[in-house]
């Protein structure tokens, strides 16, 4: 029975994306009915403005973190430290810009900081064989301390205009943040799905031992997934700092790991690993952001916003569970018989 369950072929990614996409469409429709101005996009000074544009801009950070998280979860792990890494990268940016360093150096070092954090996680998980939750919990706890140490517990204001452009600027009338985050998605998709790399990641997540026997450098692939996730978190840190024009070591990236995991799971990537859907993650992340925006529009206090999120997580988890899917197929079959 156990064997039969695990050898069941995984559902095709295409059908997996349909669910969150349907959810997103439903949510957008609901918004459009309640508030007809929701879908209105205006051109102001040659820039696009409107709620959908706002959702894309505000959702960019979650999109980035969720992209890295997708690969980590595909290897059967999880990275809890992304929120702290976001805070660290933001701190690095603020400190360097404040002391008058160039934008190029600042961005490079911020990304490198994220990469370094990811490497630490990768070594702990892949080399030392620690449980991903524990290994990344260490950096999650210590990382926020490091970020606060970096900025000396202050909120550092960033005044660099080119730096702010990365998050709030416009390119040919289009908001720049979703553009480059989207480019990251396309690049990742091309690299993973148009080479064997994506398959390797899924193989390691499905059965690490078997993939090793098949000749894959399983632990290296696993470690690389964490490095990639750290890098994404570093980029998201830059985006966060640029968006609010400050480095806030206390609040930056807070609960971001939860949103990212949530986006990945809603997007159809199994938490048990072995399968990933990059497009699904993008849809999942946008779904969350739309949900948040919807609640703002409905006048729900932001503090209560977690409740519908929780309901959605439980619903999605139930839909993914074997017991419920058996029950549903049984129900459908019954109806087919009569």
């Amino acid at each position, binding site marked *: 029975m156990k064997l039969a369950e695990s050898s069941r072929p995984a559902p095709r990614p295409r059908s997996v994306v349909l669910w969150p996409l349907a959810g997103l469409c439903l949510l957008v429709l609901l918004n459009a009915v309640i508030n007809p101005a929701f879908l209105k996009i205006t051109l102001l000074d040659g820039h696009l403005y409107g709620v959908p544009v706002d959702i894309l801009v505000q959702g960019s950070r979650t999109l980035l973190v969720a992209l890295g998280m997708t690969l980590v979860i595909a290897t059967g792990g*999880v990275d809890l430290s992304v929120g702290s890494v976001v805070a660290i990268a933001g701190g690095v940016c603020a400190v360097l810009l404040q002391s008058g360093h160039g934008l190029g150096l600042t961005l490079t070092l911020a990304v490198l900081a994220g990469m370094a954090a990811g490497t630490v996680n990768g070594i*702990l998980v892949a080399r*030392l*064989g*620690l*449980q991903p*939750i*524990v*290994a990344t*919990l*260490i*950096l*999650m*706890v*210590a*990382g*926020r*301390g*490091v970020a*606060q*140490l970096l900025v*000396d*517990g202050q909120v550092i204001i960033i005044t660099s205009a080119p730096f702010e452009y990365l998050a709030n600027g416009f390119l040919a009338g289009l908001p720049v943040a979703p553009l480059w985050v989207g480019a990251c998605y396309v690049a990742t998709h091309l690299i993973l799905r148009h080479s064997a790399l994506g398959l390797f990641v899924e193989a390691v997540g499905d059965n690490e031992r078997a993939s090793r026997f098949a000749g894959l450098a399983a632990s290296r692939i696993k470690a690389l997934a964490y490095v990639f996730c750290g890098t994404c978190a570093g980029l998201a840190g830059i985006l966060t700092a640029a968006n609010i024009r400050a480095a806030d*070591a206390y609040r930056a990236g807070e609960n971001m790991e*939860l949103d990212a*995991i*949530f986006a990945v*799971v809603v997007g159809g990537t199994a*938490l*048990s690993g072995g399968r990933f859907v990059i497009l699904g993650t993008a849809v999942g992340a946008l779904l969350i952001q739309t949900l948040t925006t919807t609640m703002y529009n409905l006048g729900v*206090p932001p*503090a*209560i*916003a*977690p*409740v519908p*999120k*929780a*309901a959605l*997580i*439980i619903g999605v*988890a*139930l839909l993914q*569970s*074997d*017991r*419920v899917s058996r029950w549903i197929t049984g129900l459908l079959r019954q109806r087919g018989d009569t």
Partner: protein
Amino acid sequence: MKAQARRLQRHLPLLVTAGIFVLLFGAASVAYEGFLSLRTLTSLLTDNAFLGIAAVGMTLVIFSGGIDLSVGAVIGFTSIFTATLIERTQVPPGVAWVLALAAGTAMGGGMGALIHFYRLPPFLITLAGLFLARGAAFWINTESVGIGHAVYNRLSAFEVPVGPASLTAGAVVLLAVLVLGYGLAHHTRLGRTLLAMGGSEQSALLMGLPIGAAKVGVYALNGFCGALAGIVATLYTGSGNPSMGVGLELDAIAIVVIGGTLLTGGRGHLVGTILGILIFGTIQAAILFDGRLSSWWMRIVVGGLLLAFVLLQRLLLGRRRT
């Protein structure tokens, strides 16, 4: 001889934890004048009462191979729930407590049932629980509510003298929970079932152990502990606050790991958790005593300790496996 050696090895993480506590406390006593006193120790219990209670529940959940990320949020919910009931609806504190404990237990049990019956990952479900409880807390009230009931005034004045120092009501509750938790974990059938389940759920099931009841039970119990911790938090601060206990689940997990309990489940000791609470409290007290060290050093030191302990466990287990 051999049995003795094995016994020693099994308790090695515990001994290391105890050694680190003595070392830390000793170092702090040498470095800071007036640190070495009974008062430091009792205030350590008072200041970490609700964290300690949460850590005991967390230990049991981790024994079973699960994890509960919702405790911090449950504490926040209970805190504001109790305060609002007492202050706004004039419910006597006793009734409010019973209602809060029932709510916490029901929520824990519900999560446990989802985890057990639908085989959902505990990580994900308790994450949803975190969102739910935190959202519900802010739904009740977004501001903190002060409690001015006579019972609360009496309880905050309550003290058990211990030599020159004294224990507050919160510390007494913590000590009771520690004793009860120890008994439950190591001297009852439920405790053994939890450990067996954490070791290998399949084997435990084949042995005929009541897996379902134990799993739902341990999450319900942790919900109870979370609610109790929330009530103690209202005693400690004299108010209810919906943002109480943000991120506390991580501290609780850190304490459990520092206490030498394996996060994969199946191995551990509640005495380790007690030592973990003491270590955590000592670091906090030392940073407070110093005054020059900023609060974020706490996070870094705890992270470092976590790393050291996890590596130590790895070392011991790795040797055992070969």
